[in-house]
């Protein structure tokens, strides 16, 4: 475990010494909860329509697919006209695009970022690497099935997918959300133990709380 994560005594500005356990004190490690839908269907449908029309992407690129984001952001493909925009922090975003191969080392950061995103949140797997490993199918440090570790709403196949396929993927995701099937966050909460077991199977130096919200 890293030094900064170990329990230690800290002296406060008022001179009082107290013990700090970073894993417990700096994070909320309460398990995620399944959030029930709104009472009335028409309200839930309205919520889903609103959610579908504002997909805010976390600017976190795991692999080579990140290169497709630049033409998407800029005037040629201009994803902003679909209500899609990129945000610098997990707190402001609700769509996580896993753009390409995901090494176990990156997976750890991805999990932490995903768990910090506000619910409802969606995951899009980009490229064949997230589907079945792609060209990294026999690599020693790259996972082969993204949906074992995170709840994936939609996959975009290709190596690499063109920006047009990503736009089609956004449209598909919007359809899924409008139909009320974009329940990734709830699925993650419901099957929390299975996801954690899978994650811990590949991340050998697990030095964070189980759920760091």
């Amino acid at each position, binding site marked *: 475990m890293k030094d900064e994560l170990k329990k230690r005594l800290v002296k406060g500005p008022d001179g009082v010494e107290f013990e700090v356990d970073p894993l417990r004190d700096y994070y909320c490690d309460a398990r995620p909860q399944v959030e029930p839908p709104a009472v009335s269907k028409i309200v839930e449908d309205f919520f889903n329509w609103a959610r579908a029309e504002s997909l805010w992407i976390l600017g976190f690129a795991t692999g080579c697919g990140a290169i497709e984001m630049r033409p998407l952001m800029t005037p040629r493909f201009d994803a902003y006209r679909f209500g899609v925009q990129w945000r610098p922090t997990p707190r402001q975003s609700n769509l996580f695009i896993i753009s390409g191969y995901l090494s176990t*080392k990156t997976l750890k950061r991805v999990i932490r970022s995903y768990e910090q995103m506000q619910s409802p949140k969606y995951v899009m797997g980009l490229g064949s690497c997230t589907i079945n*490993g792609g060209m990294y199918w*026999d690599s*020693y*440090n790259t996972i*082969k099935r993204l949906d074992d570790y995170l709840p994936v709403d939609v996959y975009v196949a290709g190596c690499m997918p063109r920006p047009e396929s990503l736009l089609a993927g956004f449209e598909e995701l919007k359809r899924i959300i409008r139909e009320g099937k974009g329940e990734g966050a709830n699925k993650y909460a419901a099957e929390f133990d299975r996801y954690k077991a899978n994650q811990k199977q*590949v991340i050998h130096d697990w030095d964070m709380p189980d759920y760091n919200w």
Partner: protein
Amino acid sequence: MRELYEQLKRLFPLGEYTEQRRDLAFVTVPKDHLRPLLIHLRDRERFSHLVLLTAVDWLEEGHFQLTYLMNDRAGKRDLGLRVLIPRDGAAMEGIHDLWPTAATYQRELREMFGIDFPGSPRVNEEFILEGWTGMPPYRRDFDTKKFSEENFNHRPGRATTDPATHMKEKLYPDEA
């Protein structure tokens, strides 16, 4: 490059010489003579820049080949020094005091090939891999496919065909 080699050969017991291009050559050096040769190249022959330090695993011959690539900026030429070290208990003297950047390469080689560089700064700390306990993954007897199959879940339905026979059947069904 040939003149440089002849010149160096009078001073050091050099091995095989390979000229790749007019401005790039490789020389095999005995382990103990590497350090004096590096200092000579750096201070007398203007090879002031260490481009890279990397390793090759010659599994069948039972040794690692370390390659120190030196660059002569003014003369626009590169010289690679090959050092063979035994694979069992692989260890090598560090050159981090000659070029501080070498410490990073040495850390990488320690982690990926398991070659020890005693005394190199932070050499035993994790470099890229996190929580790796098995055999260093760049060693050729490390079976990366087997490791991947044992550790990472596999999505069924993926099939492979030999490209040569597959395309032959597709394009020329009569001949197949």
